[in-house]
């Protein structure tokens, strides 16, 4: 079983993730405080503004307990801003912006430009039959990845979906389409670990 899947609900597209997970029969919990975090067996970090979330993680007293859970192998899935928060290093972020070093990647914020450069496209994804339609919004890029990182999809030459251990990251937004197959990869990962 996948247990209780937390969705970090400080800001951003957390309701969209929750809707996909509920649609798949999962039990979900919005996480805004350390008490909420204690109730979950895994966590989704949604898209939104990574600077805002980083700020709210600190003011909500969540950063340190979440860092401890991640260091203790809490399975996590980060999309867009969530991927930035899980990375080892952030490029083009704010100097005070913190990240969890959950996965050995460096992420560059807003790497594709402004909103007029946001786009949608079809991707080939390892472990998924047929194309996956992906929405990229002011998306980050993986600019470096370590040897332990498994690349699951690229767009042109850029890594857009990757996994290391119990950490899954996407630079796009699988929660904005009706296709739940990326979320299914995460659920399968939960059952593995």
């Amino acid at each position: 079983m996948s247990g209780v899947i937390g969705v970090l609900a400080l800001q951003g597209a957390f309701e969209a993730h929750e809707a996909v997970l509920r649609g798949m029969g999962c039990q979900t919990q919005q996480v805004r405080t350390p008490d909420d975090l204690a109730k979950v067996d895994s966590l989704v970090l949604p898209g939104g503004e990574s600077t805002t979330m980083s700020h709210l993680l600190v003011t909500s007293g969540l950063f340190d307990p979440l860092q401890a859970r991640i260091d203790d192998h809490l399975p996590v899935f980060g999309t867009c801003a969530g991927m930035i928060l899980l990375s080892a290093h952030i490029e083009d972020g704010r100097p005070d912006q913190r990240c969890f070093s959950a996965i050995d990647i460096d992420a560059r914020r807003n790497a594709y430009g402004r909103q007029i450069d946001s786009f949608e496209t079809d991707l080939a994804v390892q472990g998924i039959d047929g194309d996956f339609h992906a929405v990229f919004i002011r998306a980050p890029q993986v600019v470096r990845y370590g040897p332990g990182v498994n690349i699951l999809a690229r767009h042109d030459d850029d890594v857009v979906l990757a996994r290391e251990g119990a950490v899954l990251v996407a630079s796009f937004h699988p929660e904005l389409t009706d296709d739940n197959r990326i979320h299914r990869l995460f659920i399968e990962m939960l059952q593995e670990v």
Partner: protein
Amino acid sequence: MTTRKSTSASGSMRVNRGLAEMLKGGVIMDVVNPEQAKIAEDAGATAVMALERVPADIRRDGGVARMSDPEMIEGIKAAVTIPVMAKARIGHFVEAQILESLGVDFIDESEVLTPADEAHHIDKFAFTAPFVCGATNLGEALRRISEGAALIRSKGEAGTGNVVEAVRHLRNITGDIRRITQADAAELFEWAKKLGAPLPLVQEIAETGKLQVPLFCAGGIATPADAALAMQLGAEAVFVGSGIFKSNDPAPRAKAIVEATTHFRDAHILAKVSRNLGAPMTGIGMDQINERYAERGW
């Protein structure tokens, strides 16, 4: 592992509504210079609205209010890493073209500026950049969505520091959505007529129980409690205009409103963040204002 060359689309409704989704649960702050933009970003704003005068000053000064100087918008874009929005006059599609060329992330077709067209709003489908529009009721919201708006904000009454109109408009919109979900198929025709809105959009709301695009709140929010009130009434994020930079001590108030918007149901946190913020903007009663901006737009 396959690598594929892209066949990508920009400016689609999904991409533009998607940015609105990413702004949910956040605070978008009006700023008039790069210093204010930095204070807003430091406080945890999800986006800034670049404009030359906050609504309270536009109200005080009178005259025609127009799109801001591109130089000033560029200055704010350079100062922050979060999305930058800017306002065009209602119906002034050339101002919108200019804002799009500047790479503004969201264009606000705003009643706070003096309308340029008394019958037509901008055809927002003609643009790649997303638009946010104000609405006082569900019919107005659906007309704006039918013109291509990716985000709706309840109008409230900008520049007053008085949340009463924001509450009225939010309740108008969410109340009618609830009533439509109770209507039978025949009644939906009457609803479409009454609202002056396209029938398919009304039918969609009857099915889903929500607006086609995110619904944010604007106009009159001055305190953390105001922001939480808007959120509990069904807003999915808030715009704060004059409320921050017309208060005595903007930075702590901005931070407090950001925290209140996230923890909008937690009265203990709301009490904690509401302490020692100094004086909010003075604010004015609705009977003391000469012109209601919310009545602009149709």
